């Protein structure tokens, strides 16, 4: 799942096979070089993660650019 300006870059939610969040990001950066300019927060199944995290199939990964609510 992608939010904010990421939605415009990725265009839609993607199904990607990756064994970990680091691997996932590596693939995404290769495909969408613009991503590397953004400071992203990553959530796996609605929990924000800080380090590399193992992924199972059907895990939902959310990529979130800086918040700007309020």
């Amino acid at each position, binding site marked *: 799942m992608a*939010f904010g300006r990421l939605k415009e870059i990725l265009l839609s939610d993607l199904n990607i096979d990756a064994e970990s969040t680091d691997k996932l990001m590596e693939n995404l950066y290769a495909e969408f070089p613009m991503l590397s300019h953004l400071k992203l927060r990553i959530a796996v199944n609605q929990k924000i993660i800080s380090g590399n995290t193992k992924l199972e199939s059907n895990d939902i990964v959310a990529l979130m650019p800086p918040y700007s*609510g309020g």
Partner: protein
Amino acid sequence: MNKVKKIFQNSAISPRSIAESIARHASKTDIGAHQIFLGQIRSDVIENKKVKAIEYTAYEDLALNKMTEIREDIFAKYQLTCMHIYHSLGVVHAGEICLFVFTSSKHRNDATLACSEVVERIKNELPIWGREIFEDDTHQWKTNVF
């Protein structure tokens, strides 16, 4: 796990709904102080283009869970009678209100400090994004300044 309260509404926050919210507290006669924060959409001018609205989107599930956590922290820290939070999603026009934070307590200090802290945490911790829409219908992504 605590009850998750909803905070999002798909429209601007009307002054009338704020009045209704205030009026509902008249029966709570242990309240001595209310503190209210309102966020209003500014028509900033950026590179000669004027903001006419902001369109908000959110990762709602995560935001509501996070808000529940914030709520628990705040109630543990301050002596509050109650706290109400509303944030708009979708398009909110310049001059309209997009955020309503309402804290109440017996003595004013608790409501006042809690209100500021909640506003700060909402801006920092809730996955909400604002897209500034200019009068010529181009847009840019809002960034919060801290």
